[in-house]
């Protein structure tokens, strides 16, 4: 009865879980990697771009611990800054992007091609703090935003080196092989940006950029007191949409809506969208799938793993269940899953190797006699003490 109870619970939870799974991304965490690659005061706008995106993803719920913010220069504290300690992305200076709640993970000269690729592929030195690591898994959706000065298939880092489209594509493939993402949204605002994602070949990547080959990306406007351009056009119009439409993390706006809002005339370049590597229909992909954090609490693990996890839980709770008994109880669920194609078979196999903290007893042995024995021992002690005290009084 007990076992069948567990089985029905598993079936119930899977049935509840499955329809959600079809409509929504299968991710369980959201990460953002926001990179400004250019140095120097006159590139203020690139830092403002990135900080704007930082503000947006934080607004939509991604915690600082899951945002890797790479700022290649410190314009806020540049002596040339008319308003020390601030970064604004608009001449109205309504929002100080630098604020008092900002966590920069890679700063100044730490922003290099090497560090960026190491971050993506998690090939970092052992003493790297967690704040500088992209601790994602195959259920993480990653939003990668880059901005700086670029050209055909390259993006300049720090006025000293550049990352090529091939470098990023290969890094993403490594991420895929190391199961470091579920889906990825790559967004880049630079000159000839669309060439940067042209070399991607790993699955489940959606990419968008600000301008085509041989097209420049332009700044939107300058602040005449700060004395520099404060934001780029593509980022500006992305933000405009996000600020006016995606009010909170429960927003139902999709990436199709966002991409449809792009106006090449306003942006002054032709933004590109690459969907061929991406499995889902954009009109079903919520913006918050990438820019927001996972809001609803879900059972850890996918359907295939659920029964294994339940078995482990059951054993952990002390129930002595054999593999065969469990399979019998789970038959219904398994049949249901085997009918639909599995996406993450290998991970299931790996999952099986995990034994869990279960206490395993031989068949037929139960707790009852153990309990009786221990209770008896305690009783004997009390009786012994009582007898001894009587003898002592006498």
């Amino acid at each position: 009865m007990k076992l069948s109870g567990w089985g029905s619970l598993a079936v119930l939870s899977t049935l509840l879980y499955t329809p959600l799974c079809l409509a929504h991304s299968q991710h369980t965490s959201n990460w953002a990697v926001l990179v400004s690659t250019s140095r120097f005061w006159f590139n203020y706008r690139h830092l403002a771009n990135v900080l704007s995106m930082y503000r947006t993803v934080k607004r939509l719920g991604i915690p600082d611990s899951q945002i890797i913010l790479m700022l290649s220069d410190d314009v806020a504290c540049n002596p040339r800054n008319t308003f020390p300690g601030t970064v604004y992305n608009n001449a109205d200076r309504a929002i100080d992007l630098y604020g008092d709640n900002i966590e920069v993970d890679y700063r100044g000269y730490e922003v290099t091609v090497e560090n960026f690729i190491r971050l993506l592929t998690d090939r970092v030195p052992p003493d790297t703090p967690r704040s500088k690591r992209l601790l994602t898994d195959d259920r993480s959706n990653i939003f990668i935003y880059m901005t700086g000065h670029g050209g055909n298939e390259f993006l300049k880092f720090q006025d000293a080196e550049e990352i090529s489209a091939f470098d990023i594509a290969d890094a993403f493939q490594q991420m895929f092989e190391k199961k470091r993402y579920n889906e990825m949204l790559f967004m880049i605002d630079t000159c000839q940006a669309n060439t940067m994602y042209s070399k991607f070949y790993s699955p489940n990547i959606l990419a968008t950029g600000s301008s085509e080959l041989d097209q420049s990306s332009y700044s939107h406007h300058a602040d005449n007191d700060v004395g520099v351009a404060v934001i780029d056009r593509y980022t500006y119009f992305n933000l405009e949409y996000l600020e006016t439409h995606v009010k909170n993390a429960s927003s139902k706006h999709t990436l199709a809506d966002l991409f449809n809002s792009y106006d090449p005339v306003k942006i002054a370049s032709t933004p590109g969208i690459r969907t061929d590597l991406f499995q889902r229909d954009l009109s079903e992909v919520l913006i918050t799938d990438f820019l927001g954090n996972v809001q609803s609490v879900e059972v850890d693990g996918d359907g295939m793993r659920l029964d294994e996890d339940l078995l482990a839980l059951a054993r952990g709770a002390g129930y002595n269940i054999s593999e065969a008994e469990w399979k019998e109880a789970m038959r219904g669920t398994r049949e249901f899953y085997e009918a639909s194609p599995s996406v993450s078979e290998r991970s299931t196999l790996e999952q099986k190797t995990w034994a869990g903290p279960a206490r395993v007893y031989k068949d037929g042995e139960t707790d009852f006699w153990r309990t009786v024995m221990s209770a008896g021992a305690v009783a004997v002690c009390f009786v012994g003490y009582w007898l001894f005290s009587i003898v002592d009084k006498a």
Partner: protein
Amino acid sequence: MALRVPVNLRKNLSVVLYAFQALSVAAVIIGLASLLLLPLDEYSRRTYISENALLPGQVHAYFGGSEQNIVRAFRKEVAELGNSTSDVVAFRMAEIFRSAGLKVGQQKYSYKAAGGEYTGENVYAVLHAPRGDATEAIVLCAPWKNIDHILNEGGVALTLALSRYFKRWSLWSKDIIFLISADARAGPQAWVDAYHDLHGANVQSLSVKSGAIQGVVVVDHPGPYHRFESLHIMYDGINGQLPNLDLINTAVQISRDQMQLRTDLQEMWHHEDTYRHRLRTMLRGMVNQALGHSTGPHSSFIPYHIDAITLATHGDGWHDEMSLGRTVESVFRSLNNLLEHFHQSFFFYLLMAPKRFVSIGTYLPSAMLLAVGLTLTAIRLWIDPRSRSSTDDGQAVVKNAGEKGGDEKKKQTGDQAATIPKPIDGGPKRELFLPLSVVIGVHFCGVIPFAVFNTVDYKSMANVFYIFIAASFVLPMILATLIALTTPPRRLMQTFHLSRCFSLLFLGMFLSTLATLNFSLSFLIGLFSLPLTFARATPTSTPIALMNSILLQLTSPFAALFAVAGYWGLGVEDVLREASFGWWVWGMWTPAIVWCVWWPAWVVARVSVDASFVMAATGKVPVGA
């Protein structure tokens, strides 16, 4: 030893000689024509800002409002001190700077040149960048008296007011030095020398210093008038060096686009951007560059690789000192944005309108071609058979072959080929001793005028100059007579020939080298030296010799000096004093080049021409003439 030419050409050398002549003429013509083509749209370019960091005109300039009262007050202060001595002025200026909370330094200097003494006291103040690191500085300079010796009331008042105003901003990344130099010529030089510890005992060291100077803006707003019409941007440095084009472009863009101020270059007040105006602007710029003198306080900074310009007001219009102040403020905000020393844009260029220029790649060929014309002539003279000595037994016929065409030549060469088997490089040798000693000796003589004009007193300058003209007139004649009387006839023509050859060779090489450093000077000397290519010894034709002689006189360094004096409306002694002052104070090389390179080349040419008269007069007709 001789130029290797195919044997058949050796027999028929006239083809080669004519080819060289044609080439050198073509080089000169193309060189001149290409200079005249430069102002056309196809050859010149619009200026543009290369340095991304500058961001000219992207900031609001806030200098205005009540600041105007402060400027007016300082103007009054300056006007009252107008007739005071330099030390009183420096004392009062230092007081004002100190009251604004700046570190102040004073510096006395004294230069001696052309019998005159140039003394004064500079005063300057350093505004440390509140959030900067004191490794770099920019300079705002106002000479107490401008280059025309007019009290720079507006400029000094504005500098004082701006020193208070700039102090209130916290956004400076570089220190700002406010310099009030005692004059516009020696003062800035003394200051910049001392700043780099390269000053002599006649100049005091600086007590306060800052970082490496990245840019200098000089404000020249003389006289009691508040209002002006346009900004005159002066940019020529000592020895024809120029500031980076980005600095000029920044100033032009800010004045024109942000402040709606007209900008002028090279005193072209009515520039309509036509071919004529562009050409005139360019030529005026070239004259300034060729002279290599200081056109304002900015000039002294440029040899230190510090980019500097002077913003001088001109005319009477609706702009007041506030417009000038805002322009300076905006230029300073741009300089403040700099991350590295100016390096992106051109250092070698010719400006023909405030927004149009040609860069070195386009203009260099014209000066080079002139120099090439001289060098080609030298090579032609070398391979010319007349440069070889004729033997006594009439072998000179071979050498005549080049000049005398026709069947006679064929017959003679045919005879020789039949009788004497000649080596390829055979024939009579060139006698080099005499021509080389003439050329080298005359070049050494160039030191004499150079030394004399740099030491002689201003009062006797004109007299010494006229004596020197007379001496230069007589010297070639004496040399020609000596050579003509002492040299055997068979070597006579050869001597003049080879001395011209060496002299032209040296001049050609020197000018092509100079063209990369001071294009204008090289071009102008090349232009004046054109007669040297054809002024030769013509013992058979006195009229040609006379014509050559007159042409040489018209294109002599003296004629050029008179031309320059006439151009500026000065006496020739003023030009010489300027040259002497330039040499002693600024380290100006123009007099050295004129006296030690150009003048000797001219003398050598004169020797050949004068020899024609001597030979004609003495009846000593050389063999082969």
